[in-house]
């Protein structure tokens, strides 16, 4: 790049660029002033900020153009920058990449969230074993999030399913780069079980962004685009299931999109029935609430109906299942739900007994809303079209 003005011509060119006629040294030309300013500023050739504003046509210098409107020796100009960037934007970009990645590989990814001790891992172990009986060919993998220890991943591995433990240290939630990195590890460590086909180069490429996250926060956008040039539908699209067990915490994980299809909130009946209202963000973000440990209902004070009512106050569309991971009660409903999401609920008796009435109600409410919006739109169109 030209060091004088930043144009694309190089000074090493045999013929001097006609745009920069040579001048005796020391003589200040407008171009030269601009050049000094340009090298002082950042490489994207932003206007010089330490010095005056220079009129590009006349070379005039304006020391009062900054926000301070005056030049004070020793004091630099202050300027305002409009940013309007989402604070979670860097995470959300990687989450979008994860989502595209999962879709391209036929992976149904679910983000399991709950407070500690709700029985997530027990439910997962029971689910994996039940799925193996029903769908022996369905690959199931787990990403485990905890602050410390690999106990949960070991419990999952004991079922024969591949698992990767993420220790967040002091962190209170998983984020999208962690999941991208863990998913890459799953492929490296369990290629046979997890997917049974080799396409290692894509994964090297696809998961490079986990490093970029630490160094810059920007630049993730392009790393992934080409890795997904292939359309879903060929051999990669063999359906598989990925459970992401988030850190036990009903607050923080609500905000972090990991690229999952849905968040599943697990609430055990040994907790308070008012938790959905106490931790509304999590239940608002979840598509499904699983009430776990229902075998203990006779022994605890837990009003199931009230709990569901409170959950629907914060999320009118939330689906609800009642399960006991230890006795297996209600597990079939949960397996149906998974099969439905996987897209292979092939015609068997599947009546959506769970919360069917409600799903219907919220669907109807949505239809009503669509109709209202359409009416509003029609009205607005009329207003616009009407001659004033």
């Amino acid at each position, binding site marked *: 790049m030209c060091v004088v003005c930043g144009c694309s011509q190089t000074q090493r060119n045999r013929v001097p660029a006609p745009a920069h006629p040579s001048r005796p040294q020391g003589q200040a030309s407008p171009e030269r002033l601009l050049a000094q300013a340009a090298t002082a*500023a*950042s490489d*994207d050739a*932003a206007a010089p*900020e*330490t010095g005056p504003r220079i009129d590009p046509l006349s070379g005039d210098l304006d020391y009062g153009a900054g*926000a301070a409107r005056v030049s004070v020796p020793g*004091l*630099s*100009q*202050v*300027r*305002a*920058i*409009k*940013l*309007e*960037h*989402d*604070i*979670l*934007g*860097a*995470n959300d970009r990687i989450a979008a990449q994860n989502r595209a990645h999962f879709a391209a590989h036929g992976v149904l990814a679910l983000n399991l969230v709950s407070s500690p001790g709700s029985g997530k891992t027990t439910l997962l172990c029971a689910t994996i074993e039940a799925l193996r009986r029903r769908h022996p060919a369905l690959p199931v993998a787990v990403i485990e999030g905890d602050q410390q220890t690999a106990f949960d991943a070991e419990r999952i591995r004991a079922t024969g399913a591949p698992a990767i433990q993420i220790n967040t240290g002091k*962190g*209170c*939630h998983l*984020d999208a780069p962690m999941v991208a990195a863990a998913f890459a590890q799953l492929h490296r460590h369990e290629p046979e079980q997890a997917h049974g086909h080799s396409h290692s180069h894509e994964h090297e490429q696809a998961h490079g962004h986990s490093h970029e996250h630490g160094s*810059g*926060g*920007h630049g993730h956008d392009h790393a992934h685009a080409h890795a997904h040039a292939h359309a879903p539908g060929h051999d990669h699209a063999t359906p598989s299931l990925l459970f992401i067990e988030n850190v036990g915490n009903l*607050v*923080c994980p*609500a*905000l*972090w999109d990991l690229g999952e299809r849905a968040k599943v909130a697990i609430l055990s009946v040994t907790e308070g029935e008012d938790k*959905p*209202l106490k931790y*509304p*963000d999590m239940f*608002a973000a979840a598509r499904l609430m699983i009430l776990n440990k229902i075998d203990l209902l006779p022994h605890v004070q837990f009003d199931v109906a009230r709990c569901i009512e*409170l959950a*629907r*106050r*914060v999320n*009118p569309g939330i689906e609800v299942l009642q399960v006991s991971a230890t006795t297996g009660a209600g597990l079939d409903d949960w397996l149906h739900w998974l099969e439905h999401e996987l897209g292979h609920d092939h015609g068997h008796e599947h009546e959506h007994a769970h919360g069917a009435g409600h799903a219907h109600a919220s669907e109807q*409410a949505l239809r*009503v*809303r669509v109709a*209202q919006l359409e009416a509003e739109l029609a009205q607005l169109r009329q207003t616009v079209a009407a001659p004033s």
Partner: protein
Amino acid sequence: MHEASLAGGVLQLVDDCAQREGFARVLELRLEVGQLAGVDVAALRFALDCIAPGTRLEGARIELVETPGQAWCLGCSTRVPIAQRGDPCPACSSYLLEPTGGMELRVLDLQVSDD
């Protein structure tokens, strides 16, 4: 406690911006935090104060602009203000609310200096 992570996200955005725009420090930073964004404003402010020393945010005046929560009420088909999720519609007491505003979590703008 996720406010600490969010503060880190703010600092990352500021640092990225500094690389593009070439400034040394931030004098003033304005953040927009929606009432329904799931963020405790006091905790976020505390987290920002904690990470600021030694960064471009050191000494910066930080303004947190809270935007009100808003929802579309399926019960009475109007746009209504809500302070938090789980609150009923102030007009018809329905809980069939679809939040439409107040979920923002953004860096709005900053005043920067070059030294």
